């Protein structure tokens, strides 16, 4: 469960996230959609306590992120493809993070297997292709076997096989009762992966709905999305709000 309430973040004069409130519930994949620069990544960083909100709050698993006792075992995150030191091996990277949250060492090889990196575990991660780097990011997110997963653009750089793999992985994680929150600007991909959608534009909530509900009023989910976000582009951000 992720609960955002009036979340606001400014960078100088720019309001990146503007009084954003939404819930992400367990048991289904929730897509986080918005045009580039709409505040998706900032929201993800606010959820993880990496950036401090100027107003509002966000709770994960019932607490503020900074109050979590073993963060990696409660929340797993993929924020950027290459959030690792290029000189370290995939196994070295995961082993260090596992140690920080007292996660058993055997879990490192388990997640490397799950993402298909067992054969490359000892190679320097800096030499990885973008697809392999994404897989290492997914392994990092799964490391603590968390109930809440946040993934920022996880299919970037993946080949069609990788895209399908992520889609099925996310669905199966949600089916296990986990909270899965995935940002993307690929509407077609979200139509296939997500059940629920949180749509933002210019940092504001445009819709908190289901894929079925949103696409019902339009020819396709894509059309519905453009209709919704055109409001944001024309500085009428609240116009498309539906909830």
């Amino acid at each position: 469960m992720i609960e955002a309430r009036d979340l606001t973040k400014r960078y100088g004069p720019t309001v990146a996230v503007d009084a954003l409130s939404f819930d992400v519930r367990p048991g289904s994949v929730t897509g986080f959609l918005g045009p580039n620069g709409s505040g998706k990544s900032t929201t993800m960083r606010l959820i993880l306590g990496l950036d401090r909100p100027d107003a509002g709050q966000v709770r994960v698993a019932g607490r503020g992120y900074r109050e979590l006792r073993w963060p990696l075992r409660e929340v797993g995150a993929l924020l950027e493809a290459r959030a690792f030191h290029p000189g370290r091996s995939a196994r070295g990277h995961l082993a260090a993070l596992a140690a920080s949250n007292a996660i058993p060492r055997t879990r490192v090889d388990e997640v490397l297997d799950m993402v298909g990196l067992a054969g490359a575990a000892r190679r320097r991660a800096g030499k990885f292709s973008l697809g392999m780097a994404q897989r290492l990011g997914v392994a990092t997110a799964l490391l603590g076997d968390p109930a809440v997963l946040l993934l920022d653009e996880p299919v970037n750089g993946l080949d069609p096989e990788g895209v399908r793999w992520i889609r099925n992985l996310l669905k199966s994680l949600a089916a296990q009762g986990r909270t899965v929150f995935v940002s993307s600007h690929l509407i077609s991909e979200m139509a296939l992966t997500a059940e629920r959608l949180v749509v933002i534009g210019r940092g504001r909530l445009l819709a908190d709905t289901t894929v079925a509900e949103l696409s019902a009023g339009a020819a396709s989910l894509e059309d519905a999305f453009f209709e919704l976000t055109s409001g944001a582009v024309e500085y009428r951000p609240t116009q498309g709000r539906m909830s």
Partner: protein
Amino acid sequence: MTTTATASARARRGRYGLAQVTLMEWLKLRSLRSTWWTLAITVAGTISIGIAVGLNTRNASGDLTNNALAGVVPGLLLAGALGVLTMTSEYTSGMIRATLAAIPRRPVVLAAKAAVLGAVTLAVGEAASFVSFFAGGATLRRGITAPALSQPGVLRAVLLAGTGFCLIGLLGLGLGAIIRHSAAAIAVLVGGVYVLAQFIGAVWRGAAAYMPILIVANSLSTTKPEPCQGGAAQCPHFLSAWAGLGVLCAYAAVALAVGAWLLARRDA
């Protein structure tokens, strides 16, 4: 799934603390080849200079211990750079986001880094210092007696020269946390600690005693105070070994405290 059961059982009790985070930082430092190269070059460079000075010593009346430790000051530079990179390489690569998502109480991260880096640079610094001392003594020409650890002030000088690596390393770590960019932080470390401090020391004699490198060279690694020719007005009055150690500790502590404060306040 057994791991799920164990993990959730463990998640119910306890919380991450310095022990877990220190282990993470040790695994991080250990798993980079650059760490070992930097440390190896630090030790080799320090010892080589000690040997070179030993071979070229003609004046038996000088502070032979200080001569043998002549490689410490250049060697410190690498320890300081390692300290800087321990922090800034995480920002360069984006690893910092993974680290802080794992450990949201950020000062714990810097404390763990300081513990690991401090222990490693202390061990390596003492090794470099003692080997330099013996190697520098062994290469003295015939007729010049090598200093012995049992002589007054010698053991202290060799030991404290080794601590210099640790303290400059920690100063580098603190600067890395404050500045966050590798090149800029190394520039501040080298420019500030080596160049600017030497300049200030040369221009303003009174301040010279407090400049980090001059503390290492003239307070920590000497057995006796520098003889002053021409009266106190022209000579820097260097700190005693222990006072010098205290001032150097204070520099490292201030840099780390400011670094921890900024780390906790700034967006990652």
